């Protein structure tokens, strides 16, 4: 589904990604771990199409199509979803209205009419229930005054609404207490199918107890320096990242 080939990306002439190769197939869960500053969030942003980053070499291919010329919204319409580490506050625009806009813009891009209002409401209600989101929450301004946990839960709610092909969860576990973590992880697991894929970016192994990965990759200094099965996450948890850094120097 996703194929990343020798991806190099820079911001303001500083190279952050230095040759990433990654292949994600439908039905798989991949975890990307690594120390601070290794390029995890940059990788997520580059896949989602953030213009601040310049791809200097290599490419990102989704279902055989190079995404190079696609704006973030085009990628979203093709099924890429990024759950943000720091979701942005939009005062005056309710969660419901925001979702209506997002869904109908995606439909418009696919040549479909707006979703009928009653169908939209039903869908919103259903997904909110799945994530144990109170109905009052949906009429609040998007992310404004939300707690860290509420913001993350709202990200997964948006993911549930948009039903992406490829979901990238960027540090979704940070700022979550154990109950919120469980709710969020359950949500992600319910959305998983043989037709979609998830990339989980995290610092810690904790989230991976709930969202069990098929593959774990360690990112260091802009490169994937080690890949393995889910047991690699445990090893990292036990040993820290220092041994990876050591190894990669060799």
């Amino acid at each position: 589904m996703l194929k990343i080939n020798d991806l190099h990306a820079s911001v303001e002439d500083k190279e952050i990604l230095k040759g990433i190769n990654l292949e994600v197939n439908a039905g798989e869960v991949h975890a990307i771990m690594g120390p601070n500053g290794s390029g995890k969030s940059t990788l997520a942003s580059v896949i989602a199409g953030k213009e601040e980053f310049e791809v200097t070499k290599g490419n990102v291919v989704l279902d055989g199509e190079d995404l190079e010329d696609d704006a973030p919204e085009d990628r979203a319409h093709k099924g890429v979803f990024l759950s943000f580490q720091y979701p942005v506050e939009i005062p005056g625009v309710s969660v419901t209205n925001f979702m209506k806009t997002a869904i109908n813009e995606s439909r418009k891009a696919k040549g479909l009419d707006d979703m009928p209002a009653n169908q939209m409401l039903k869908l919103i209600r259903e997904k909110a229930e799945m994530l144990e989101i109170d109905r009052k929450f949906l009429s609040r301004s998007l992310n404004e005054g939300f707690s860290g946990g509420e913001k993350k839960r709202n990200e997964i709610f948006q993911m549930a609404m948009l039903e992406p092909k490829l979901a990238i969860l960027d540090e979704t576990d940070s700022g979550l207490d154990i109950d919120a973590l469980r709710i969020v992880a359950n949500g992600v697991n319910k959305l998983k199918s043989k037709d979609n894929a998830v990339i989980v970016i995290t610092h810690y192994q904790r989230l991976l107890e709930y969202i069990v990965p098929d593959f774990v990759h360690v990112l260091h200094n802009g490169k994937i320096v080690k890949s393995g099965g889910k047991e690699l996450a445990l090893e990292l948890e036990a040993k820290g990242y220092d041994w990876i850094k050591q190894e990669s120097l060799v």
Partner: protein
Amino acid sequence: MDLKDKLVSSFMAFENNVDVDHPVHDVRTEAMKNFEIKGFPSKKEEAWKYTSLNSLQKIDFSIFPKQDNALDYKDVKKYFIHDIDTYKIVFIDGIFSSNLSETTHDGVDICLMSSALTKPMYKQIIDVYFNKVASKYESLTTLNTAFSREGAYIYIPKNKMPKKPVEIVHFATGNEASLMLQPRNLIIVEENAELQVIERHQSLTSNEVLTNCVTEIFAAKSANIDYYKVQNDVATASLIDNTYINQKSKSFVNVHTFSFGGKLTRNNLNFYQNGEYMDSTMKGVTILGEKQHVDHHTLVHHIEPNCESHQDYKGIYGENSTGVFNGKIIVDKIAQKTNAFQQNNNILISDKATINTKPQLEIFADDVKCSHGCTIGQLDEDAMFYLQSRGIPEKEARALLMYAFANNVLESVRIPELKARINKLIAKKLGVNLGFDL
């Protein structure tokens, strides 16, 4: 003949039509003398540094319109807040339109300045209030005073509240090649009374229009006034709005100014706080494009202790538009415990757009809280990415962010139908259909 000369000679013609024995005649004559000496303000004056009236003065404006203009309500319905019932004081090319208006004398007076200035029953009120808060020295205000004849007259007696909001609407039909209008409004809200006003100036053609408007507002003790200025005129219409507000103790006056259109707009908004424990609020949303120019000049004069003022102006400037915000706050020495807040935030969405923003604080008391902040920025790129990554295209994402930026100014609009209308104007101005009513 330049505009000043034309106005001076027109004044003589004008005087032949009015009652020279009326005390207002002397007020007008005095005012004309002042204008003759001062003339139009030039860019050399600090207060007019960023707004030039030069090109307007070259236009051969008609000072007195023909009297035979009529409009069908269905043709101009869209300029009214037509989904609610309102009192209406409507003028067509400066002439009162009884056809489009709905005035009243039922417990409150919502009617015409021309009546108030000529009928003996209003003489006492005119003596007490007319030209008492408006400046006797500012040249454009005195020009308006010299020609003051028509406009809205509103008198709300003690403890009264009109059943519905009042709309003051001025239409220009384009029957004149170019027309200068000088409406004069007088609004008196007595003790513990309330009033809501929506004011709009609307040209219906591409002929040049210049409106030099003066509004005097008196808010007595514990009075409550909401005043909304909707400025969304065509690209050949210019407006110089001079609003003077005299407030007494425990009164609340809120003025919202929505500036979305016009060629040149100058808002001179002046608050004088003559009493204690009152609140003056000024809010504005300005969204401009093309070569539009809007200049907000506010003044709050804190004369007595224990009062508050709040100013919050948001501006979004695109294409070649230019904006000015100059917020002056004066706190007199005895005006202790004053709280004065001022905020002006701007977004430039074009390299060619400019904004000049300046706080001007003159504080003579020592126990006060005054804050001011001006910002000029671009749209937050991270926020843009967030919205786009949800499938919202760039243009719509921009519009959503600009709407969010202006939103807290809209929250205090207390007429829901007006708020809905302003939201629609904003969406239209931003050129988007967001799939829901903002």
